């Protein structure tokens, strides 16, 4: 279904990639280095750290909420069934522009949850198969992590050490460590994609603590300062920004032919390619597939299983805060420094399956942000400010939400975004296993902060969507009836369509997913290159 008039104007590339984040940016670089020509369609713009991240100004706190905001609110509209907060960044680099770069690997058990715990499904690949790709991505990003006696005792086997040494603990982590030690838990330095040494032409982390709002120093290894420059250096990658993909077109033989997109001027354009990779994230990818209907695929492209958009899974994020008597100055250094994985695996003592990671979390402890949280006004507000500013530390969880087919991304039948495209309609309800786990996580967070000596602990109720980790909507599997893509992330239904983002996760694991998305994308790129070499694409 190529729109009339666009066919003659389209460019042709070996591969067209939709999305330039932790998946698409990685795939583009790998394909380019292998000699393939790639057009990347990115719905957002480029960000220039010096011009766009005003974290060196006195008024920086007033400006940071606007840094990654869309130019018009209708561009990023979504609707949801029940309360759901959908947060992501569109731009070259995707949500890694905004992420805190927390980069632990998934555990071996994560790939075998059906076998081990009788829930959800096993992945069609094992941890061992993914390990070399984890290593490769870690070295590209210069991940900093602990080793030797400081190593995480729960970490899966590694073929190589972390590329750069771990970030040392700050005062907040030393405070929480008191509590963890008292309870016999292992608070370790969290692996982060923020090198502690100069890395591939970028400076070492200078502990400014602005990771969430873009790193002005380019020390944080977001995709725009790591993979993207390497991709463009090949001379074979063209990144088209402000290009919103609208439809994947299909040839009569059932192969994907190219992608129709809307450019910055609102014009419809077309890129033809021998292979198509979707890496928009676990909301945008199923949305694009569901919008790509044709006579061969009346229910959306690659959707013969009916599972495109199903099993929309996130992480169970519980946030807690503890106020301490001593000054902890939590704004110094990265927002997340500590990791506890004592609760990662299913435990016989729990009435639910799987587990969670805990992170220490002290982002945004600056004056204005603290004041907005403090509430009140007048003398009461000032007293609260003196109590909380510099004295508050946070913790959060990354709990494994189990996939559920009724949790889904669908097309809203009525609402349209600024391009006139149907907005995503998101459903994610916390089910029995999730609710039981959240209860335990909340108790555990309170215990740790109490044991650390906090004079006041507040555990917030878990709000769906707050993890910002969205997964599972085009899952991998051997069986075309119960999965959307195969073990190489190729669509079962379409021989030249691949998915390169978190949509392919069979289960969510209990770690921040960006590193795994990039590792899977590296592997998927390898599969695509092999198919080109074999003449199949």
């Amino acid at each position, binding site marked *: 279904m190529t729109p009339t008039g666009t066919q003659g104007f389209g460019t042709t590339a070996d591969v067209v990639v939709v999305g330039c984040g932790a998946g698409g940016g990685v795939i583009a670089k790998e394909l380019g280095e292998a000699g393939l020509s790639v057009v990347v369609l990115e719905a957002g713009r480029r960000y220039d750290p010096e011009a766009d*991240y005003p*974290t*060196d*100004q*006195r*008024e*920086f*706190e*007033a400006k*940071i*909420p606007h840094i990654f905001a869309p130019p018009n609110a209708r561009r990023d509209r979504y609707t949801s069934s029940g309360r759901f*907060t959908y*947060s992501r960044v569109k731009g070259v680099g995707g949500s890694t522009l905004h992420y805190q770069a927390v980069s632990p690997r998934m555990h071996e058990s994560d790939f075998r949850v059906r076998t081990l715990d009788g829930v959800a499904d096993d992945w069609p690949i094992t941890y061992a198969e993914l390990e070399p790709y984890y290593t490769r991505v870690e070295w590209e990003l210069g991940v900093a992590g602990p080793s030797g006696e400081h190593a995480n005792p729960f970490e899966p086997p590694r073929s190589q050490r972390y590329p750069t040494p771990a970030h*040392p603990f*700050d*005062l907040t982590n030393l405070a929480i460590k008191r509590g963890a030690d008292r309870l016999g838990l292992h608070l370790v330095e969290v692996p982060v994609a923020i090198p502690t040494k100069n890395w591939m032409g970028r400076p070492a*982390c*200078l*502990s*400014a*603590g*602005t990771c969430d709002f873009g790193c*002005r*120093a380019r020390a944080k290894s977001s995709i725009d300062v790591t993979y993207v420059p390497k991709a463009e250096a090949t001379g074979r990658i063209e990144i088209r920004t402000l290009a919103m993909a609208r439809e994947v077109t299909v040839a009569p033989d059932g192969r994907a032919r190219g992608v129709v997109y809307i450019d910055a001027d609102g014009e419809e354009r077309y890129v033809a390619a021998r292979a198509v990779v979707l890496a928009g994230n676990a909301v945008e990818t199923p949305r694009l597939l569901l919008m790509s209907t044709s006579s061969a695929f009346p229910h959306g492209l690659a959707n013969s299983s009916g599972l495109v958009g199903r099993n929309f899974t996130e992480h169970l994020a519980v946030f807690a805060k503890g106020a301490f008597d001593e000054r902890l*100055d939590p*704004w*110094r*250094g990265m927002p997340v420094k500590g990791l506890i994985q004592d609760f990662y695996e299913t435990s016989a003592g729990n009435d639910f399956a799987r587990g969670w990671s805990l992170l220490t979390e002290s*982002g*945004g402890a*600056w*004056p*204005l*942000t603290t*004041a*907005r949280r403090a*509430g*009140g*006004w*007048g*003398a009461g*507000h*000032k*007293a609260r*400010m*003196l109590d909380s*500013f*510099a004295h508050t530390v946070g913790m959060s969880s990354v709990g494994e939400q189990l996939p559920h087919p009724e949790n889904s991304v669908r097309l809203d039948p009525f609402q349209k975004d600024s391009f006139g495209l149907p907005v995503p309609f998101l459903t994610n309800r916390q089910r029995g296993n999730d609710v039981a786990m959240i209860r335990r996580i909340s108790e555990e967070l309170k215990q740790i902060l109490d044991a650390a000596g906090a004079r006041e602990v507040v555990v917030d109720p878990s709000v769906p969507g707050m993890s910002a980790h969205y997964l599972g909507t085009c899952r991998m599997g051997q069986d075309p009836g119960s999965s959307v893509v195969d073990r190489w992330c190729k669509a079962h239904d379409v021989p030249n369509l691949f998915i390169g983002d978190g949509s392919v996760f069979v289960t969510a694991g209990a770690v921040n997913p960006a590193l795994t998305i990039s590792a899977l994308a590296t592997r998927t790129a390898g599969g695509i290159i092999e198919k080109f070499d074999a003449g199949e694409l």
Partner: protein
Amino acid sequence: MRFRGIRTRADALEPLARAWMVAFEGGVRAAARRPRRRLRAATPERGGLSPHETALLSTVAVLLIPTDELGPGAAEAGVPDALERRLRQSSAASTVYRSGLANLDSMAWRRYRQSFTALPAGAQIELLTMVEQLASPVTTRGGKIVDRLLRLYRFVRYPAVQFFPVLWDDVMEAFYTSPVAWRWLTYDGPPMPLGYLDVLAPRE
């Protein structure tokens, strides 16, 4: 995300405010015209404030973050000037401010037969507390729709109710990005470009 609207915490005072509203609503409506005329007569520059509005704004800002034994306040940090500069740049903000200030002054006239600026601090704080209360969610026996309508009515009827959270956020923004507040709190920012080479100790 971490940036949400401000939250009002004085829930305990809500019934009081509701009683006040019922008792004084009619009166406020009747009195509203007088000070409004006064303000209009001052003919401020486009987007700017009249001298009386400036005095009102300054009074309220200083009430929101007072100078006291805990430390410096909005006055030392130059918050009123910062707000005025901001209003000169945005006529939309200026409209919200001016109608809010006028409404606040009219409440003072109705209740105390005096301008807000002439009231003792205790009465000023009492009035601001009432305005804040009027902005908070309502629960009546009439159900959700009645609650929402009542809240909407308050927003439309009392511009000060809309104005208060906007003002408070602007005051916080001006105060907490000032060197005065940073010294008060011993905050050693901004984060960039220096960063913190030693995360365990304050910056030199």
